[in-house]
């Protein structure tokens, strides 16, 4: 080195330089191995979510986020009075709600330590109208019929269950007293219907603290016309369930509801909430009808071979702890007869059961893959909250279904939206169902489904194989279906 002022040999400098390079390379490589997460240390679900979140981060328009933050906070303050938390309990003084013990991490010396935490189970909800109706997650139905509703003012109000639609995940409560209520959300002014890219979720925890979250609807555009969108919430017991979903400017879009058997939650559009509240209210004034707790479907000809029957009505779902459940009926059973009279169709069977007074004993002939048995079921009075049917008797219209990639388990395609919304019940398809087969062909991805669909002549019935929670259900769609 020409300019070197020390008298060391070139070997000295080469030595120092190589040592420094060695430290850098070795250290850098080791550091990299520390930073790269172990491939086996994570569940596929977590990984999928992480990918999703990374993707979202890329998509995020940070400037936009910054620009709306203040509006969001204003909105949160404006909406907050109507957002409530709901626990089970008979009187406002005595919350009796189920307590959940879960493993949580508390930070000790900067490190997460696992500990069991007891907490009063609660969901969010919001005051829907001036009549004291509160809409919330249908999870509350499992807790009983009496509830305590606590709002921003920390005043505890008692309420009772008015009704629920399990298919939609929505429950409606009625406050016992109507004094001093904040402005309900149904009466918030309707703003212009811009497509939504950001949504603010507002909830309340059991301790009364307000929860606010901002979601980016990347790829899940919630349409102003009112279909549902899957949200990215991954906690089934999320305190946000039942929370209000509003645009940053404060227009109420809907309510966050759980999707049965799925770790995600969905956003139920306000139009649908309105329809359910209306129906629940009408139902609550009717005299009691008999109920056994099954969801039924007519047998399609294609099912005959699969189920090894030629007549009867298919049981698609059995309400847990309902009379039919206790008698041992299961989904995929086929009801052949009622009180020794052959059953022809689902509406006929429903009419027969509902015509009987509560407490009647029914003899039901059931077959399951060939074997025939007879079970005895005692009907109980119909409670609206137990209803599984959601306006199921509308005439068929072509369904428009949008499928999305299944980020959670990878295979199959998730039903992201169904239009028109009212028909989800008719079609027995639900948001969050995972389509794994179509007309006998396996569906691995959403494009698979579109490909198979194109090969089906329009107007032909389709046989959908659906995974819903732990069950796999076979569904026939007679109506034309358009995949979007």
């Amino acid at each position, binding site marked *: *080195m*020409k*300019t*070197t*002022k*020390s008298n060391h040999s070139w070997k000295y*400098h080469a030595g*120092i*330089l190589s*040592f*420094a*390079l060695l*430290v*850098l390379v070795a*250290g*850098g490589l*080791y*550091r990299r191995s*520390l930073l790269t997460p172990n491939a086996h240390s994570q569940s596929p679900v977590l990984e999928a979510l992480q990918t999703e979140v990374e993707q979202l981060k890329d998509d995020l328009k940070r400037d936009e986020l*910054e620009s709306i933050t203040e509006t969001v906070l204003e909105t949160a303050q404006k909406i907050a009075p109507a957002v409530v938390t709901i626990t089970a309990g008979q009187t406002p003084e005595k919350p009796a709600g189920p307590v959940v013990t879960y493993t949580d991490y508390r*930070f*000790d*010396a*900067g*490190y*997460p*330590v*696992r500990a069991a935490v007891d907490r009063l189970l609660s969901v969010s909800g919001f005051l829907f109208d001036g009549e004291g109706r509160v809409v919330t997650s249908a999870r509350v139905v499992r807790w009983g019929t009496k509830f305590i509703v606590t709002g921003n003012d920390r005043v505890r109000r008692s309420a009772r269950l008015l009704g629920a639609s399990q298919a939609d995940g929505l429950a409606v409560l009625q406050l016992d007293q109507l004094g001093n209520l904040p402005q309900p959300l149904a009466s918030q002014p309707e703003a212009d219907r811009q497509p939504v890219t950001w949504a603010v979720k507002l909830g309340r925890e059991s301790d009364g603290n307000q929860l606010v979250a901002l979601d980016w609807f990347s790829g899940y555009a919630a349409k102003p016309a009112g279909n549902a969108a899957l949200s990215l919430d991954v906690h089934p017991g999320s305190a946000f369930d039942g929370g209000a979903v509003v645009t940053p400017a404060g227009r109420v879009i809907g309510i966050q509801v759980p999707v049965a058997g799925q770790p995600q939650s969905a956003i139920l559009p306000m139009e649908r909430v309105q329809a359910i509240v209306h129906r629940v209210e009408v139902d609550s004034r009717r005299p009691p009808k008999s109920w056994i707790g099954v969801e039924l479907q007519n047998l399609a000809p294609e099912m005959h071979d699969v189920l090894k029957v030629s007549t009867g009505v298919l049981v698609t779902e059995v309400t847990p702890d309902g009379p039919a459940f206790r008698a041992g009926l299961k989904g995929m059973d086929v009801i052949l007869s009622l009180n020794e009279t052959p059953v022809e169709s689902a509406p006929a069977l429903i009419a027969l059961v509902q015509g009987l007074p509560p407490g009647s004993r029914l003899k039901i002939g059931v077959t399951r893959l060939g074997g025939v048995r007879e079970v005895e079921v005692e009907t109980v009075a119909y409670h609206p909250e137990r209803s599984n049917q959601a306006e199921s008797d509308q005439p068929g219209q072509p369904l428009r279904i949008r499928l999305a990639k299944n980020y959670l388990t990878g295979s199959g395609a998730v039903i992201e939206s169904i239009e028109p919304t009212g028909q989800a019940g008719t079609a027995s398809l639900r948001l969050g169902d995972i389509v794994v087969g179509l007309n006998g062909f396996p569906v691995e991805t959403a494009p698979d489904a579109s490909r198979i669909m194109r090969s089906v002549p329009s107007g032909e019935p389709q046989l959908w194989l659906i995974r819903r929670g732990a069950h796999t259900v076979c569904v026939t769609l007679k109506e034309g279906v358009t995949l979007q």
Partner: protein
Amino acid sequence: MSNILLVGLILLLALAGGHLVKLLKVPEIVGYFFIGLFLGPSFTAILTHDTVIAMEVFSQIALGLILFSIGAIFEFGNLRKVGMRTLWLTLFIMGGTIVTVIVTLLLCGQNWQTALLLGVIATEISPIATILVLRELNSEGPLTDSITNLLALNNVGCLVVFGVAAFLVRLLGGGPESASFVGFALRETFHLLWGLLGSVALGVVLGYLLATWGGKVEEQGEVLILVLGMILIAVGATQWLGLSALITTMTLGATLINLSKESQHLFDVLGSTDPPLYAIFFVLAGAHLKLSSLAAIGLSGIGYTVARVLGKTAGAYLGAGRLGFPETVKKYLGFSLVPHAGVAIGLALQMRSILPAYAETIATVVLGSVLINEVAGPVITKLAIGKAGEIRLDHAEPFERV
């Protein structure tokens, strides 16, 4: 407002602010800092959090430049002259600071972990504020020499001790249940060693490169391009590799001064070009802080601020006395080391990711104290140097050349 417009505004307002406070015989960086506070969220909010973040790159470059020039202190000849004595003095001052702050905070009711971590953070001395005051005063003498020699050692020491302290707190505070202890200790040790040795290694490699190349470049403008480019590469590479920019740029300067005969001109060339960067640095530092953090400082914060100064002066007094430093050093060195900022804020914010349990308290105390120190520190340093009689009357005003 466009960022370019803002930079222009920052520079001119800083100049004006610097002149204004000089009328009060206060170092001009305090003026820059006030301009920052004024433009920041506490007052006009012209500099929002976003713009401050966007301009962070200027601050990082400024810090890189100042540490690069501090690195020149590690010239072997100079080191042989002052080496061991300064090292001991540094240990005295650091020890004094750590002990005083820990005891004070324990008395204020903090837990030992918070007290220990804050005690270590308190040893930090803002190199940029201190050096700029010295430059502004054009000071010369034993005190000035001691300060410059000490700054480098002290801040390397601060980073090392902080690494060890954080390691201790994590180890004794209980690691994660499932992870094996050995693996945990190994990883922590690696991070500590990597931060030190890796940074030095990077500085050495880049220093060799700069020395070799620097010998072939003559023209002033080209030298500037070369030095600036290398410092930027050093700062950028440390971010990429998770190293300490402070140690790397300092090592870069140290390697250069020890390798190249003509290296002094590489250092000199920066002197005339960097003042705008420092102005931006201090304005941004002011804009970073909120007056409200002063209100939140609490008893611990006041204890910390006072104990830090006491610890430094006591350590300097005892150390300089024992080691036979001149009387002016013994009396005034501690007071000259009051400025407290950049690295301390960095360490306090770093707590959020490495030890979140203590991060809030530490950030509150440090941010509040830094706010006080950014104003009081340079003033006290100037007074101390003035008392020691090391201000050269014919001192140049670097900014009048801008």
